[in-house]
């Protein structure tokens, strides 16, 4: 039956079927009984036997990894908090309140255009119309990707307030449709 299957699969026309195709099939499956049925070879799992020294070394490596991970997380948390402090120090009272409540601030550029900067890095700036609706999104961010997001938001705020034209010149922008 297997030989027939292989013959049909490998050579759909009788003219190209060769005696060798059956041999290929047997080689491929490697475990075929004389009756043609496939035999699944399984072996029980055997846990490696470790010496007490090996166990101690593994436990020490694990402890070191856990410690390194905790230190990395603590460092990242400190970096995030530092950037958050720098941002909040340079927000107006209204902006700071909005940031703490909604993780977003509103900025009015010198041109009079109003923008919403949401927490994030890319595509987080929206232009707001007089009705308070987002009409366009802008994707522009600080070049080094390892700068914390709060720093990025502060850089975007300062640029919109004091360097709007240059910022929007390099930004990718897309209209926001009512369906988005």
């Amino acid at each position, binding site marked *: 039956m297997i030989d027939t299957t292989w013959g049909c699969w490998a050579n759909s026309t009788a003219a190209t079927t060769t005696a060798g195709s059956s041999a290929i099939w047997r080689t491929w499956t490697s475990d075929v009984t004389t009756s043609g049925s496939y035999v699944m070879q399984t072996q029980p799992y055997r846990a490696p036997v470790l010496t007490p020294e090996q166990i101690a070394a593994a436990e020490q490596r694990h402890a070191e990894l856990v410690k390194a991970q905790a230190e990395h997380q603590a460092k990242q948390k400190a*970096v995030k908090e530092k950037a958050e402090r*720098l941002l909040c*120090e340079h927000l107006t009272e209204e902006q700071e309140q909005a940031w703490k409540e909604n993780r977003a601030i509103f900025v009015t550029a010198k041109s009079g255009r109003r923008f919403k900067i949401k927490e994030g890095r890319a595509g987080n700036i929206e232009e707001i119309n007089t009705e308070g609706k987002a009409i366009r999104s802008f994707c522009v961010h600080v070049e080094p990707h390892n700068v914390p997001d709060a720093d990025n938001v*502060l*850089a975007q705020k300062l*640029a919109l307030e*004091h360097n709007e034209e240059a910022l929007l010149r*390099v930004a990718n922008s897309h209209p926001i449709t009512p369906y988005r």
Partner: protein
Amino acid sequence: MTTATSEKHEMAVMDETGDTKLIWDEDNDVEVEAARSMFNSLKKKGYAGYSVNKKGDKGELLAEFDPAAERIIMAPQMKGG
């Protein structure tokens, strides 16, 4: 622009640690020159320098270093995403 009393001024340079601060005394020429040198070096790398106050309601894009600025924030170059 000058200040009546000798006050510490600060430059915050955004980086992967959040920011790194450089402090100078307007009356100390060495410190002022160190801050100016840092400002110019970062400007060459594409950073923008903003003179700001701590209330967030005043700011200005600096074309050149202002030793009398209360605080300067150096923001890395912006790139379209």
